[in-house]
C-alpha cells in the first residue's frame, strides 16, 4: 500500500544526489540535498492546478518533513512551499 498525502500537503520523492563535479566524494550527511523532486501525491485541499502526480517540483531549501516508508524516502512539503513545477 502506497502512502498518500492529505490536506494541503504534497509528498515528493527527492532527486538523487549527484557526485560532485570536482570528482571528490563527499560523505552522505555532508552532501547538499537537491531541492528538486518528483511529486508522488498531493492532498485534496491543494488548489494549485500545476501540482500533479509525476510532475517535477522545485521547493525551498531546508524545508519539509522527511519520512521513510516501505523502503522509500519521501519529503513532505506544504503547497505554498513549492516554488515551481515542470511537467
Amino acid at each position, binding site marked *: 500500500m*502506497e*502512502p*498518500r498525502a*492529505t490536506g494541503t500537503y504534497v509528498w515528493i520523492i527527492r532527486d538523487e544526489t549527484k557526485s560532485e563535479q570536482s570528482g571528490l566524494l563527499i560523505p552522505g550527511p555532508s552532501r547538499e540535498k537537491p531541492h528538486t523532486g518528483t511529486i508522488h501525491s498531493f492532498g485534496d485541499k491543494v488548489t494549485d492546478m500545476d501540482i500533479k502526480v509525476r510532475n517535477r517540483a522545485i521547493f525551498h531549501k531546508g524545508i519539509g518533513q522527511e519520512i521513510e*516508508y516501505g523502503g522509500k524516502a519521501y519529503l*513532505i512539503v506544504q503547497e505554498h512551499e513549492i516554488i515551481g513545477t515542470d511537467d
Partner: protein
Amino acid sequence: MIKAANSKLIVRADPTQKNEIKIGGVVMTAALLFENNYREKSPTVGVVVQGNECLKEGDVALFHHNHFYQPSPYWIGDDLFSVPFNKTIFGVLDESGNITPMCGNIICERVPVEYAMPVPVEQQKTHIDRARVINPGQVIPYKPGELIFHRPHAGYDIVYNWFGEERRVTKVHEDMVIGVVG
C-alpha cells in the same frame, strides 16, 4: 445561576481526581505536589454543567490538562470552570471509561520502530511521525486500523483516572495529519 459566554461550556472538575491511582490492582497515593509532569498530575476529567449541541449536561468529557490546573484562567469558582469548545476537548467518556473523540481529535496508538536486531523492551522506541488509528470519531476520511503520518511529535498522550484506575491514550488532531496509507 452563572451562564457561559462566548460559546464556552461550564464544567465541574474535581481537582483531587488524580490523588489516588490504581496501577496493577494496587492503589497508590500520588505525591502530586512534587510531580513535575503536568500531564500526569493535572485533572483532565470534567462533568458538563452547561453544554451545547455536542456536549450535553451530565456528559463526562476529557479536557486538556491546562484547563483545570490552578491558577486556571477558566476557573469561575468552587469546582466550576468555563472552558472553550475547541480541540482542547478531546472526547466524551462512556460508562466504562472509554473515549469517543471529538473536535477533530483522532484516538490512535503509537507505532513501534522495527529493529533489524533484537532490542530489549525498555530500549524499544516508537515512531515520532506515524500512528495507527483506533477511533477516528467524527473525522470521516480515516478508518480504524489505518496508518496515518503526522507532524513530528504531534501524537499527544492523555493520562486520566477512571474510578482510580489510570488510563492512557494517544490522540492526534486532524490538522496535524500529513498523509495516510491506503
